[in-house]
């Protein structure tokens, strides 16, 4: 899959996981991994990018005597998911056009 396309998809996949409630690194990977290839080193820049864009907020809390960072989606993150869904509708039309050999 194209790197840029995958990058965009992964961002939305992570946001989708967080739409179901706050989560942490390991859980996000296990939930996303069955649908799209994701590794620990791939997730870090995604989370950092989403945080910098104000789409997620973070909070460190104690768990089993250690700190664990929890991520929560913001309104901007939710808006990004909606925007993506809109984009895919448009993409569907382009896809049909390509599949039909350039005929409407």
């Amino acid at each position: 899959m194209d790197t840029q396309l995958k990058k965009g998809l992964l961002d939305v996949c992570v946001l989708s996981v967080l739409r179901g409630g706050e989560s942490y690194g390991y859980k996000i990977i296990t939930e996303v991994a069955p649908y799209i290839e994701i590794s620990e080193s791939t997730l870090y820049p995604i989370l950092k990018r989403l945080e910098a864009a104000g789409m997620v907020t973070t909070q460190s809390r104690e768990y089993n005597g250690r700190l664990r960072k929890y991520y929560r989606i913001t309104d901007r993150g939710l808006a990004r998911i909606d925007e993506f869904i809109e984009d895919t509708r448009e993409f569907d039309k382009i896809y049909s056009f390509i599949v039909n050999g350039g005929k409407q």
Partner: protein
Amino acid sequence: MTFKQWNRKLDKKLSALPRGEREKVQAYYSELYMDKQEAGMTEAAILAEFGPPEEAAARALEESGAPKAKKGAIGRFFIALVLFLFVGIPVLAVIFSLAVIAAAVFISSFAVIAAGIVDFIYFAVQMGLYGVSGAYIAHLGIGLGCAGVGFLLVPPFLFLTKKLLIVCGKLFKATGRYIRGKREAY
């Protein structure tokens, strides 16, 4: 490789980042490591999933805003030059000064002993040539006292010299590590 070694390599590769950022990346991997371990995974399996530390560092640097790696030989040459000029030379000067101080401290105690003995011998000869006088006897005493003080100074000065040389060595190693780390990061 253990997780500790993996983490150390990662830290080295991230040395272009500020300490706070490096700690964030390390905290991220430490948290994942603990979570995976609690899920029953072995250290080897976890590290296999993490991949090489170089790759983890490269991905972490992507979003950090850190300067992009200089791939050309000229870029690397300038980085090495800047590091040498602004880090290497001042640190070498400090190390050299400390080593000179250490040598001077070490020699000074022996110089005090030598001065005391010379003073004693000189005035003993003077006394033999010109006869006993109060001033000569006083000088003999001063010479002996001086030599005694010199002997007393040897152990603490030796200790001080040793410590200074250890500091020199540590400073040298730390600078080497710093420059190597920066170079590797690029």
